């Protein structure tokens, strides 16, 4: 009897609350199934829709059925519904338009931007909840703010703030608005900020709550924003996908803090799910580049990599457009290796045109896709798919390497580090050990490049000096255009 009385105290039964909690359960299930489906090519698209449906359900039911228990014990539904709906409409329109209008090449930036929005949202929630929590604690004359609620609020602000600022910097870098600042000093400043940030959280938690004294929350917000900036600043632009993935999981954790705060299971499950799968995804991305996460964050790539500096006089051999046209037309098997240069030049449609042209002459053309070619894993697949290149024409790295011996010509379009033989044979090279496309095993290699400039890793590529390699300098788009013209005139 005793227990029943206490239970009813906690659960003021109401059918609405039950419906709300059931909707959260359903939303969580949809998130999990959505993520599961997203990791298989055939089901990915429906997975995304499932997760979106779960989200819509959770939002709708929250507006309709959520009740907050006030200090005097009465339950109160959601107010300001007009404003909430207004904000939802504004956000939906802007989000929808931005996502629909963005060019395929700018997708990474967009993901980063949206991630930052989520982080900022989590941080704002904490900033609004802190004063309320503090005055509640002060009212019961608590001596410290050591409790789960305060911890969730402070961590939510800290992680959300870092995620927001970091995502904005990552966005700027990918959009070429912000350059890299590589300095070993920054690494220490960084570490100092992190320690300061954590120490400040601990300091606030041990403080006695004083109603109305809220400067700490603003100070913490500023610290988190500054740390977010210094955290991403030294990391090279080419590593931004990994950083975005990491910040993505941060935002997940920040959202989970909100769930902890409101005892909201949908936020808790959704947030933690993204937090953990995001972390694993980040590690998988690093593995695809054969690097550790720490290595990426410290930014050891490039800059200091003077290793493998060659001084011997090496010459590159150029090939004329007409020679290249003849070579390609009389080949049996051609492999195109696209890289970020292709994305920059927007030459994917011309690639497809070249493919059709050569196929009509009986040449077999395929694409060799390195998992980290471009600026995001899968970047090249998306890009070529946009130009209507058939899915089965895209070969994964291993398959392409297996057939490399039988390939007559490899055309490298705007790729560099992913075809660098140093990854195989130069232990002093910073990319040593990274799996690469072994294009030097093919009979001929044509490299389309704007100049002899180095790739993102800023290291020399000996492939350019290989006896079987011919260079075709110029912008990828213009060169492909001319090449197609030459082949047509043969």
């Amino acid at each position, binding site marked *: 009897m005793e227990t029943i009385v206490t239970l009813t105290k906690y659960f003021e039964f109401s059918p609405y609350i039950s419906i709300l909690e059931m909707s959260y359960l359903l*939303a969580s299930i949809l998130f*999990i199934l959505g*993520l*599961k489906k997203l990791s298989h090519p*055939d089901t*990915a698209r429906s997975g*995304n829709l499932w*997760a*979106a449906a779960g*989200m819509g359900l959770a*939002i709708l039911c*929250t507006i309709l059925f959520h009740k*907050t228990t006030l200090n005097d014990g009465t339950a109160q539904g959601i107010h300001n519904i007009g*404003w*909430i709906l207004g*904000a939802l409409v*504004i*956000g*939906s329109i*802007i*989000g*929808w338009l*931005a996502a629909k209008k963005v060019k395929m090449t700018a997708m990474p930036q967009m*993901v980063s931007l*949206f*991630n930052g929005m989520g982080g900022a*949202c*989590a941080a*704002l*929630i904490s900033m609004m909840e802190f004063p309320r929590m503090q005055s509640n604690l002060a009212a019961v004359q608590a001596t410290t703010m050591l*409790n789960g609620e305060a911890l969730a609020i402070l961590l939510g602000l800290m992680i959300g703030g870092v995620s927001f600022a970091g995502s904005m910097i990552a966005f700027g870098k990918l959009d070429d608005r912000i350059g890299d600042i590589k300095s070993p000093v920054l690494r220490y400043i960084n570490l100092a900020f992190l320690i300061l940030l954590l120490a400040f959280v601990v300091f606030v938690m041990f403080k006695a709550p004083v109603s109305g004294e809220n400067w700490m929350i603003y100070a913490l917000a500023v610290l988190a924003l500054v740390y977010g900036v210094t955290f991403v600043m030294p990391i090279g632009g080419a590593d931004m*996908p990994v950083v*975005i993935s990491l910040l993505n*999981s941060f*935002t997940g954790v*920040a*959202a989970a803090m*909100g769930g902890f705060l*409101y005892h909201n*299971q949908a*936020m*808790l499950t959704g947030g*933690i*799910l*993204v*937090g*953990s*799968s*995001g972390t*694993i*995804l980040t590690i*998988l991305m690093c593995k695809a580049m054969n690097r550790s996460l720490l290595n990426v964050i410290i930014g050891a790539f490039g800059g200091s990599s003077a290793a493998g500096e060659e001084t011997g006089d090496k010459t590159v051999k150029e090939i004329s457009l007409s020679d290249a046209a003849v070579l390609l037309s009389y080949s049996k098997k051609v492999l195109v290796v696209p890289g970020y240069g292709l994305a920059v030049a927007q030459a994917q449609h011309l690639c497809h045109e070249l493919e059709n042209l050569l196929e009509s002459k009986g040449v077999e053309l395929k694409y060799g*896709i390195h*998992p*980290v070619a471009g600026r995001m*894993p*899968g970047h090249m*697949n*998306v890009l070529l798919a946009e130009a209507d290149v058939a*899915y089965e024409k895209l070969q994964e790295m291993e398959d392409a390497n297996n057939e490399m011996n039988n390939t007559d010509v490899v055309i490298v379009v705007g790729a560099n580090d992913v075809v660098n033989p140093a990854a195989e044979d130069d232990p002093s090279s910073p990319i040593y050990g990274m799996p690469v496309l072994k294009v030097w095993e093919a009979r001929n290699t044509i490299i389309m490049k704007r100049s002899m400039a180095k790739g993102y890793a800023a290291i020399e590529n000996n492939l350019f000096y290989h006896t079987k390699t011919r260079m075709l300098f110029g912008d990828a788009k213009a060169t492909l255009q001319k090449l197609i013209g030459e082949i047509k005139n043969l």
Partner: protein
Amino acid sequence: MNEILKFFMEYREAIFIIILSIFLGIEVISHVPSVLHTPLMSGANAIHGVVIIGAIIVMGHAGNVLSMILGFIAVVLGTLNVVGGFVVTDRMLEMFKKKKTQK
């Protein structure tokens, strides 16, 4: 020590969900092919937009002008995350799908 034990008892349900969700998150995506890294990241990005529920709750009992303004911004930002995230992911995946059916 006593504090920690008390903390655990008070939040044991949340802690259970957190720990189980961590394993679930790892398990669910551990065999993803590299081609799908980007869409998966983007999809996960949209899912953490669930933080918008928190924004709606705060906004739902905001009293003064400042918290109304902050709440309004929070809901707008959260919606951007959700809607933008899902639409961008769908656009990315649309391209994979189209190729498949053309076979």
